[in-house]
């Protein structure tokens, strides 16, 4: 990693150097850190609500997830020292001894099972129809057994996510509805203790001096997390040094931060995607597949990466971002990706040719974006310009968050909508997670793609543990889906973070969200 020595980031903005982890901090206490939350204040810090950047960051620093995700997206033991499938429908986790909650109580299998049960229940925001795990129970003082309807290769990967963070059962039952609110807080075992939460202005974390894992023992005694969702407010705070650093820095402010002397921007690998989806492939101008194809070809993805993301993204030509590739079968996925790159490469002439025979020329496409999201807005404007070139006009419909959310869940809210733009991230680095949402009927992000062959491939793939063995099925699914031109990922954004040069140790890959990344922050010497 580069860290402070990495200087002002990569010299060619189009090709920034990706770093996952800055050099470790010196073993020295830091009194107080202030970190910005560009994605705003968490709505709750209940692990059940762990589905956005800020919530994940807070929970990951307060609580221990069952497994640990490394900066390079590998799985390591954490609360569970080991996991074992005893059969295709049973997973047994061995729980670490000696972990104590902040209140001094021991962390036991009961707590783990309770936490998992909550996340498997209907209250969880992450579950969904594709969930295969059914129940979790303590099968011994330090052993938890999870039952499945059928084998789910994704499940273990999910255990590193904050939604599977372990909370204290007794405390949680007492806290009831207050759990995870500003008033109630949490009772966990992580490297930081919940200090206080002043709704609207700050969340205070205090160091847990009794933390069990020396590798993640916090340097900072106190950390203040400040919601700064307005990008220029964030910039002001970072430039003036009032905030020491932040992850999820919006690409729009990269140029402002580049010139700051006292801190550095960092780019890291991420499992994020910017997805353009066809909302209506049965009627409207996009019912014609060649129009969809033409539109996909008319978009200059590199341009988006360069202009909107200031180079902090890599152009992408399939629905799958590179980070979702299974580690063991990287080469297979990469080869497939090259095919899609060829098929969807920016080629106006080809796009025009595809349009030539189409009746859609001159018609208007409605593209839904989320109001207030600068990145989406800029991407949409670029798409609008490019579509114009091939004779399609695009009307941008920027929807308020609630309505925007409705667009995906509620088919009636999609009436008249042709395209949607989404920026998101996965809970796991597994290709099936995103493909499942997009290609399997019944899922929220599936806009009518229903191919039995693809569904079958999905179901088969989910039951196979070995990545190389699984890859052909995943690639079949990908191919079936991709060749229908229902969806494409335009770019895969990097993780952009910024830290004062007085700090080092930051995890700069997107794994920061799943690890006690605040604990690692400390002074360089």
């Amino acid at each position, binding site marked *: 990693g580069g860290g402070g020595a990495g200087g002002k980031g990569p010299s060619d903005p189009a090709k920034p150097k990706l770093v996952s982890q800055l050099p470790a901090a010196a073993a020295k206490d830091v009194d107080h850190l202030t970190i910005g939350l560009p994605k705003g204040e968490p709505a709750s810090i209940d692990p059940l609500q762990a589905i956005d950047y800020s919530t994940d960051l807070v929970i990951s620093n307060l609580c221990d997830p069952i497994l640990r995700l490394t900066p390079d997206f590998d799985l390591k033991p954490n609360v569970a020292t080991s996991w074992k499938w005893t059969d295709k429908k049973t997973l047994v986790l061995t729980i670490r001894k000696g972990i104590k909650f902040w209140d001094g109580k021991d962390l036991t299998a009961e707590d783990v099972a309770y936490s998992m049960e909550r996340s498997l229940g209907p209250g969880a925001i992450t579950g*969904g129809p594709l969930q295969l795990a059914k129940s979790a129970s303590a099968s011994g003082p330090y052993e938890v057994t999870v039952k499945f309807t059928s084998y789910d290769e994704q499940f273990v990967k999910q255990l590193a996510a904050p939604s599977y963070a372990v909370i204290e059962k007794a405390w949680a039952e007492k806290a009831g509805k207050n759990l995870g609110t500003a008033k109630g807080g949490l009772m966990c075992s992580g490297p930081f203790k919940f200090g206080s939460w002043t*709704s609207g202005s*700050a969340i205070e974390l205090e160091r847990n001096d009794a933390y069990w894992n020396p590798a993640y023992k916090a340097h900072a005694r106190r950390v203040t997390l400040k919601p700064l969702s307005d990008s*220029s407010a964030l910039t*002001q*705070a970072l430039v003036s040094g*009032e905030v020491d650093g932040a992850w999820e820095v919006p690409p729009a402010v990269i140029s402002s931060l580049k010139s700051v002397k006292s801190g550095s921007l960092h780019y890291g690998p991420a499992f994020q995607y910017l997805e353009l989806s066809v909302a209506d492939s049965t009627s409207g101008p996009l019912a014609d597949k060649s129009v969809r194809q033409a539109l996909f070809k008319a978009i200059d993805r590199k341009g988006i990466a360069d202009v909107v993301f200031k180079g902090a993204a890599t152009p992408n030509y399939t629905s799958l971002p590179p980070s979702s590739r299974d580690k063991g079968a990287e080469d297979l996925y990469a080869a497939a990706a090259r095919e899609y790159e060829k098929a969807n490469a920016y080629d106006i002439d080809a796009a025009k040719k595809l349009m030539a025979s189409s009746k859609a020329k001159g018609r208007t496409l409605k593209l839904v974006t989320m109001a207030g999201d600068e990145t989406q807005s800029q991407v949409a404007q670029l798409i609008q310009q490019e579509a114009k070139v091939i004779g399609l006009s695009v009307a941008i419909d920027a929807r308020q968050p609630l309505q925007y*959310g409705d667009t995906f*869940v509620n088919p009636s809210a999609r009436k008249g909508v042709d395209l949607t733009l989404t920026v998101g991230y996965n809970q796991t680095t597994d290709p099936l997670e995103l493909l499942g949402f997009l290609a399997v009927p019944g899922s*929220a992000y599936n806009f009518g793609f229903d191919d039995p062959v693809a569904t079958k491939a999905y179901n088969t793939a989910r039951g196979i543990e070995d990545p190389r063995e699984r890859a052909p099925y995943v690639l079949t699914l990908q191919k079936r889906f991709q060749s229908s031109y229902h969806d494409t990922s335009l770019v895969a954004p990097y993780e952009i973070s910024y830290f004062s040069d007085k700090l080092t140790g930051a995890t700069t890959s997107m794994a920061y969200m799943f690890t006690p990344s605040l604990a690692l922050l400390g002074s360089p010497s």
Partner: protein
Amino acid sequence: MTLTLHPAVSRFSGRTLWRIRAIVRRLAGAVLTVVVATFAVYAALAAAPGDPAVAVAGPHATPQRIAQIHHELGLDRPLVVRYFDWLSGLPRGDLGQSTVYRNSSVADLLAPRFATTAFLVVYAALLILLLGLLLGVLGGAFRRLNGPMAALTSVALAIPGFVAAPILVSVFALGLGWFPAVGAGSGFTDQLHHLTLPALALAIGWCAWLAQITRTALRTEKTSEHVETATGRGLPSATVFRRHVLRNAAIPISTVYGLTVAGLLAGAAVVEQAFGIDGLGSLMLRSVSAKDYDVVLAVASLIIVAFVVTTQLVDALHTVLDPRLRTKDGRP
């Protein structure tokens, strides 16, 4: 309106009785305003598209789960019933629950934000009073300053907070480093330090307005006959200005100042956004688009109540300032 009064009340003089009646009538009017206005907010919100249950349940929720959440949130009941539920919670201090901030009580969300915004608004209100009066009095008292002040205030009047804010930040926070660039701070001096620029950005237009009103009120009053009489009686001009011009101009000035303060609370949202302050205004913006019913209602009623209370206070102040209002119609 007739009031049935306890016999003991008859001890009061007619004047007191009349006052009590006037106060009761006013209160009733104010309460009616708040109730009608908040109901309008509620109804508008209900009519808006989007389902808060979807946001609560997440994108992968089943219809059953959504229905269950509807029930939990009470969204399956008629609008009027829900509104009166909310209303009946008020006397108990129960402002309801947020849907966005899962399980958080509205009061908990509101308290710290209200503190922040109130600080900002009071700060701005003081700035407006001081600067506005100063500029206005200078322009109104000295003929030679009238023109320059008129020019200055009409330009300042046109400077919106959202233009002033980024400029103030680049100059005084990032350039000179005198003030923090974002946030509201904690503790009195820290808050004062943090909120100076936001308060300035918020105050600038209103300040100009107050200055203009003050200036014209003073000039109008100066040409009034009673001021001429006072001058004609050989009173020193300072005395005339203080006792006759300023005292009488205080009536229109206080009206405008009251309206200003009443409008500040709502106007703060823009400045809050520009300075990354999470106050009432930004909470309102966010909750409305998320259809967070109880939060919206609470913020809206706070803003409306603040407006109603300020205007009532100004009315009361007028009765103090203007004896003509103490009897009805101003007739003998």
